[in-house]
Every structure is written in structure tokens, then in C-alpha cells.
């Protein structure tokens, strides 16, 4: 009897330990998200300006000089219609640092939006790949899964993705959205003579026909995040117009 009681006490202690650890992570998570939200708002407020607005068009001016003073890893600004994606993009020296660090380089469990470190942003990248966490609250790339819905796909306004770098503003037109088991193929950034085959494959994967032609002369943008099961990826490809 005593043994049973002892086991119950041990179990209670273990359960309390699990609750403590989980609670700590949950607190960190929400604290991190809140901090990221504040950083995001501060960036949009201070460094991103709508300089020209017509009924058909909104143009943005990004103060890269100031942003680079905040974080020299800044490489661009990304906005995707029909999602919450509206972030400055950084590029680390690898693809892991910004998984756990925010724009201000402080530890943050939700990380930040970052480009594949292989991308050079010299105007000649054939495939610019951008990653972000699939967060529960929809921040970062938590809303990228919207692209898998029919509602998002059938709204043509969503098919244009804005990506601004120091070289200027670019509009990308979406040509493929899908989920795939985690792999390295679609995040390739170096191509020899296989780019046409590459775009052919990733276009065929799409669950929706965007009726956009892509060929070996195009440059593309890839957005990637995990699904909730963590073993698949939600992927969007768009070609530069």
C-alpha cells in the first residue's frame, strides 16, 4: 500500500514537472510572439512607407539603410496578400540561426522570417527561398497555409506577391502551391542547366492551376513552412514579373 502511495506521489511530482516545463515553454512562446509582434509593428511604422497609393496600386518604400543598422542581415521586405505575411526578411549565415532568433537577434522561440543563406541577393538568384515558422497564432508563416484553400486560390489579387530588396521592388506571380514531405529539392538555389526541369516539376506539384507559364529564363521566389505534423512542408512558388 505504501508502495502505491509512493508511486502516486512520484507520479504527481513528474506531472508537476511536465506542467512546469510545458508552461514555461508556453509562456516563452507567447512572450516571444508578443515581442515579435511589437518588432514587426515597429518596423512597419518606422521603416516602411506607403509612398504612392492609387486605386489599383500601392507602392512601398523600405528604408534599408536604417534597417541594416538595426540588423545587417536584412535583405528584403515580403508581403503576401490573403495572409498575415508582412515582414522584413533577413538572411543568416545558415538556415538555423533565425529559427530561434528574432529580427533583433535576441532568442525567440518563434524565430523570424529568413532567406536561405545560399541566396546572394545580387540580382542573379534563380530561386530565392524564404522560410518562417508555422506558428499557432498565425504570425510569421503561420498563415501561409491559407494558400492551400480554394478561397485564397480563386482570388486573383492573392496571386501577386510583393518582395522588395535593395535592388528595388519586384512583383512575383504565384504559379504553384502544394504540400510535400520535407525535402531539399524545392529549396535548391544553384542550377546548372536543370532549372527548366526544376520549374516543370514544382509547377506540376501545384494543387491549383494558376495558368502561369514559367520557363528557364524566369526567376522565382519560394516560401516554405512546416505543416502542423512537422514532417510536411507548405510551399508557394511565384515567378518574377
Amino acid at each position, binding site marked *: 500500500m505504501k508502495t502505491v502511495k509512493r508511486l502516486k506521489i512520484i507520479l504527481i511530482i513528474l*506531472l508537476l514537472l511536465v506542467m512546469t516545463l510545458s508552461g514555461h515553454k*508556453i509562456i516563452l512562446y507567447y512572450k516571444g510572439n508578443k515581442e515579435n509582434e511589437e518588432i514587426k509593428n515597429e518596423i512597419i511604422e518606422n521603416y516602411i512607407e506607403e509612398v504612392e497609393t492609387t486605386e489599383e496600386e500601392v507602392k512601398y518604400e523600405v528604408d534599408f539603410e536604417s534597417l541594416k543598422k538595426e540588423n545587417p542581415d536584412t535583405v528584403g521586405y515580403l508581403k503576401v496578400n490573403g495572409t498575415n505575411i508582412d515582414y522584413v526578411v533577413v538572411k543568416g*549565415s*545558415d538556415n538555423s540561426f533565425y529559427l530561434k532568433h528574432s529580427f533583433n537577434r535576441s532568442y525567440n522561440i518563434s524565430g523570424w522570417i529568413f532567406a536561405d*543563406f545560399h541566396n546572394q541577393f545580387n540580382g542573379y538568384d534563380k530561386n530565392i527561398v524564404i*522560410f518562417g515558422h508555422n506558428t*499557432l497564432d498565425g504570425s510569421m508563416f503561420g498563415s501561409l497555409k491559407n494558400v492551400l484553400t480554394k478561397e485564397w486560390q480563386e482570388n486573383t489579387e492573392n496571386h501577386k506577391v510583393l518582395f522588395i530588396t535593395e535592388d528595388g521592388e519586384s512583383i512575383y506571380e504565384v504559379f504553384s502551391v502544394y504540400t510535400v514531405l520535407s525535402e531539399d529539392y524545392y529549396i535548391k538555389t544553384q542550377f546548372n542547366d536543370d532549372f527548366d526541369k526544376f520549374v516543370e516539376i514544382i509547377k506540376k506539384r501545384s494543387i491549383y492551376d494558376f495558368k502561369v507559364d514559367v520557363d528557364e529564363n524566369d526567376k522565382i521566389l519560394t516560401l*516554405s513552412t512546416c505543416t502542423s505534423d512537422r514532417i510536411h512542408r507548405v510551399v508557394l512558388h511565384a515567378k518574377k514579373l
Partner: protein
Amino acid sequence: MIKEVRKLIKKLPIKVLSLLVVSAMLVNYFMPVLNVFATSSTTKLTVTFRSGSESLGKVQYSLNDGSTWTDITNNTNELSITVTGNNLKLKIVPGDKKEVDYAGIELRFDDVSQNNVSSLGLESAGGLSVPSNIEEVKLENVEFKEKEESSPGVGGGDTATYQGNGAATLNYTINGAIEYGEGGGYDHGIGFYINGIRYKADESKVTYTEDTAYERDEHGQIILGNNNQPIPILDPNTLQPMTEKTGLTITGDTIHYDYDTNTNKVNFVFTMAPGTLMTGLAINNKQITNLPKTSSELQNAYNDHKLEIEVNDIDVASTYDIVINARYPNSSEEFMGNFLWDYNPQGYTGPDDKILHGTLELVQAKYNNHVYKTADEINALGGVYIWRDAPRKDNYTDDREGCGEAQFPKGTILTVKIVPDAGYQLIDFGINGGVFEPQEEIGIYSFEVQGGPFHLQATIEEVNDEVRLASQDIIFGSINVDKAANSGFDIGTAKLEVSDNTNMSAARTKNFEDAAYEEGYTIDNLLDISLYNSVYKGGLKDSKGNYESWDTPINDLSEKASISLSLKDDLNGKDIVVVHEKHDGNKVTYELIDVNYTLPANCISFETDSFSSYAIATKEGNTTKYTLDDTDGNTVSFVKEPGHTYSLEITNYVGLTDEQLEAASIPKDYYNQMLEAITNATKEAGTLVGFYQIEVTDENSNPVHNGPFKIKIKMTDDMKKYNTFKIMFVDTDNNFVTESPILLTKEGDYLVGTIDHLSTYAVLGSITGNPQTGDLIYIWIGSFAVAFIVLVLIIISMSKKAKK
């Protein structure tokens, strides 16, 4: 009263009464005879002749319904006789080869004028019946004239043909008509057609003969074409308004008149240039009233380069008295725009030499909201367009002046393309000092056609190729580019733009530096060099006074261009190259191009066939490149002055064994502390897989610090677990301060990169791939929830047992 008659009768004897009755009966019987005598009243006939006509014919009368005729005339010019009889008739009988001229004849019955004498049948075989009870008939001013042999047959068949040597006389008066010169290539005279036959003037402009020189269509109209413009009818040489030109005679071997036998009419067509406005027209005293006046009427009357006024209801005659009133239209009455230009590649410099060293093409015409694009469509624009001598270079094989001329309705929006020859620019294009509005496409201008004549004026001048500089370090530039056909410069001029590339990314800058470094050079200036084929937008200038232009980027040339740039800084004594970033499809390569350097302008000159980003790179003229290696195959390359002996030492401190530490006299604790400190300092960049001290010393054991240095490090077995590597400077003498990591690339079993100085470096490895961007919050929340529920259940269970 009756009683009184009865009394009188009773008083008359019976014989007297019988005689009266018989007499009454006889009168009644012979009444018709008496009536004849009563209607054969006397009629006075008076005939007068115009002087000279009394002997050319005669007037006859008949009292027996035309069975017999009696001459009234007897070589006197006036007769007055009295005739008595029934069925009086009159007729006029011309003499041999004579005919009646009804123009002045007047016929009166009892002083009442009879209308349209010519139609009363006086000349007919049956003559004119004089109504009864007419006491006086006057036939005055009877005139005969010679019968015209050339006059059309009267009452013939459907077609009458006259052939003879006689001439129809055209008494032709123009009041204020406007004439332009035949030699000027215009059809600006007033001309005419009669029954579809055009007549042209001889040199006297008095006699007109049928114009047979021109090809005609199925309607007999002249087909206009190259230099087949119709000839103006009046003197083209004076360029003065013509007045009172009379007595013109039309002659022809054969004149065909096709006419309806019932109407027997002649058709006239008067033609004139749109710069002439006909305000009045009379033919044989008949006023033509339906002359076109409004713009719409005038445009409807405009056909094939000229106004055509058709008059169809003119009586056949041997003489046509035509009076035309014409004048210049005022500006509001102009309905056509008539403009011309001249072009001659042979060097003609006459007054019409408006578009020398360029070509002009018509692109489209828009009129009444309809766009005419093809040549046929444009030519058919209301039938109003003539494009003569299209101004293309290859149209001209001799030294004559070429010209173009076009006419469009006022208000037509005309789009033309004008491009200068190679080496030339259009610096002015417009009319009346105005400048046409350039469109988006190269050489395309649009303008609205105004009424009236005008010249298109295009000033095209020889212009040097241009270099525009936006650089702190370059003060002058020039370019020499091939301008052969299909070179991209067969029109306009070249424009070279050179600017400092201040926004080049670090990665690209490094690529330039690496390419230069391979040959021992360092980058002095990063430049963007762009080449354009430039075509000026007419006379438009920007706010800085430069001509605005259409600029077509030329990225590649079939023949190399020569570029010269004068630098602000003196590079005398240095070895200079330009580094060129070349793009071949998706591949980017860097080439070093030799330059010529000349003083005193500090001018570098080089040749290239493509345009993008460049860098000017230099090295001291006496430097050379060294590459050192050690026994492990590690290498370091750098550029220094020749004549020295250098040695390399590379030591990796990661993974040293106790024996190695002992041999190196490094305390193990110190070693571990050092590695721990280095690991902590570099952990953000990856896993520490190597820590190198790289040292190059000269023959005097003096270390070489300043680079850049290109390093090649052999990978250890531990490194091969990773796929991404960086190298990071760690200052072990200063609290392990680090610099930004530099990416190393794998070349076989080696890691390769460029560092700017030699010291202690950490090599960091990481495994990259598709990053794990999943969210663990689900697991944490689930864990917390499960633990909480289980905990509650246990507590409840324990609580229940405690109660028991």
C-alpha cells in the same frame, strides 16, 4: 307688243311676206358659205431679220394647212404683208448649210410674246399653226448662221458621233482663280472633263486637246500614279491668280458624246485643288447653283487629290461660255490638309530639303474615329490620299529630288514614324515652329492635320555619340562604336552612361574582388557602364537642357566598342585592368580586360562587346602573386612585391591529442579552456570544427598580415560530417572578439575562401537543409493539458480513498 306686230302683218301685202319667208330660208341654207367669208379675216404678218440673215434663209406661210407655202421674204430685212385665208401657218426655212439661231428670235401674236420659240416647230416641215382670230403676227430678229459641221447630230440614235476638224470653242473666264505650277508637282489648277474626257492645255494655255498621255480606268478617269499627276489647265508659271482668260478652244480628232436622245445633254466635270474654292459657275449663261460650300460638301466632292464638281445638265452646243468665280478659301473654309516633304539621300540642299538624313513613314491615320492602318486603307481614306514618292532611301537611284505629299481631311490624326540616319539626330520636327508630340515607340509622332497647305519640317543634324557621367572618379568619357547595318546603331547615335555602383551587394563586390585578386589586382572603382542606342524625341529637352530621347539598351555588340574614361586620380605607374561581370544565360563570369593608360588625361581605354557592371582594378606595377603550400596541401595565395622568400605555417588546434599537446607544450586545461571560450564565441555561426593559426613570414621572419589572402584548407574527417562551413576571425588576445563569419566553399576535400588578414580563425560547420519550421506549441499545450488532467484524477482518487 304682239297686237301691234299682228296689226303690221295685217297691213303688209302677202307677197312681201312670202318674199321675206323665202329670203330667210335661203339665208338659212347658205349660212356656211357666209360663215367662210366671215372667218377669213385679214392677218398681218411682220417679219424682221437680223442684219445679214435675210439672205441666209426665208420665212414662208401657208393658208391651206401646209399643202403649199408662200415666201414672205424677198431679200429685204423687213416685210409686212396681209394675208387672208384659213389655217394660216408659218415656218422658217434656213438656207443651205445654215441653221436658225433662236437665241434672239421673238414671236408675238397680237403683241403677246410666245415662250420658247425654238420649241414651237417654226423650223419643222409642218410649220407653226397660227391660232384663228389672230390679227397680227410678228416674227422678229430672225437670224441664220452657218450650220456647225461639228455639232452633234440632232435626233439621232442613242449615240451620235461627230468626227471632223472643227473645234468646240470654250469661252472660259475665271475670276480670281488660283493656279499653282505644273512643275511644282501639284494638281492645283482648275481643269475640266467633258463627258469623261480630260483636256489638257498646250503651251499657250489656250488650246486644249484630249489628254491621252495617262492611263485611264474603266470610267475614263485618269489613274494617278508616279509623276502622272494631271496637268493644270492654266498657266503654271506665274503663280499668280488668273483672271479673264478667255477664248480657249477644245480640239480633238474624235469627241464622243454619249447622251440620252431625250435630254441631249453635255456633262462637265471641273477639277481643282482643295486650295481653290469655286464660288460661282455659269455655263452658257446658266448659273449652276449647287456648288459645294460646307466642309462636308467639299469633302464629299473631293476625290483622288482634287475637288471634282460635276455638271450634267448642259445643252449641247458648239460654244460653251463658262464663267467661274473662284478664290482662296479662308482658314475656316479649308477642309483638307495638304502637306509635303522632301527627302534626298544624294545631298540635295534646296529649299524643300526638309528631311535630309532621315526617313519618314506613315504609320496610320485616324479620322472620324476610324483608324486606317494599311497602305490600302490609308489610300482609301475617303479617296483623299496620295502618297507620292514614298521617302525611302532605296527609292532613289538618281540625283533628282524626292518628295512626298499627302492630303487628308482636316482633323485627321496622323501618326508618322521619322528616324534619323546613323550618326544623326532629329532636333526639330513640327510645323509652324511647333513640335510634334512623341509617342512611346521609337520615332513615332502624332499630330492633327490642319486645313491648308504646309511643309513638314524636320531638322536632322549630325550629332556625336554621347557619354553621360555620374561618377565621382571619372571626369570625361568617349565611345567609338560600329554603326554598320544591324549593329544596333543604324539609326541615331550611341549613348554611354557611366556611374559609380554604390549599391552593389557585398556578395557581388566580393566576386569582383576575388576575380581581381586571382591576378593580383585590387578593386579601385565599381562602375555601371550602360550603352544605349539613342534617338532624340524631336526638339524636346529635359529640365537640364538635354535632348530627351528614346534609349534602347544594347547589352551585347557584334563588334567591340572602344571606351575611353579619364580618371580624376593619377594612376601613373600602376598596372591597370577593368574587371567585367559577364552574363551568359544564368551564368555569371568575370573577365579582366587590359587597358591603355595615357597621360596627362589619366585616360584608360579598353574594348568590350557587352555592357553591365565593371570595376577598375589596379596593382602596383612591380607586384607579383605568390601561392604557398604546406605538407598537408593547405595553400595561401597573396600578392606582394617580388624578390622575397615567404613561408607558410598553418596549424589546426582542434582535435589535438594529449601527445600533441604535450609536444607543443600546451597545458591541457589551458587548451580546453581556450576551446570552450572559442566555442562560446562562435556558437551562433555553427559547430567549431577547426581553429587555425595561419601565418606567412618573409625571409626575415617578418609576418605578413595584410591581404587579401586566398586560403585553401584541407578538410579533417570531423569536418566531413557537415555540409556548410564558415570561417570566423577570433581575437584570442582580446576576449575572443569575433568578426562576421565568411562562407567557405567546398572544393573536393578542401575548404576555400578569402580573408583579408592572417591571424587565428575558427572554422565552423553546420548541417543545412530544409529547416524545421514546425511549431512545438501543440506538444507543449498537449503535455500541459494531459499532465493537468492526470494530476487532477490522481488527486481526486487519493481524496476519495482518504475519505473511506
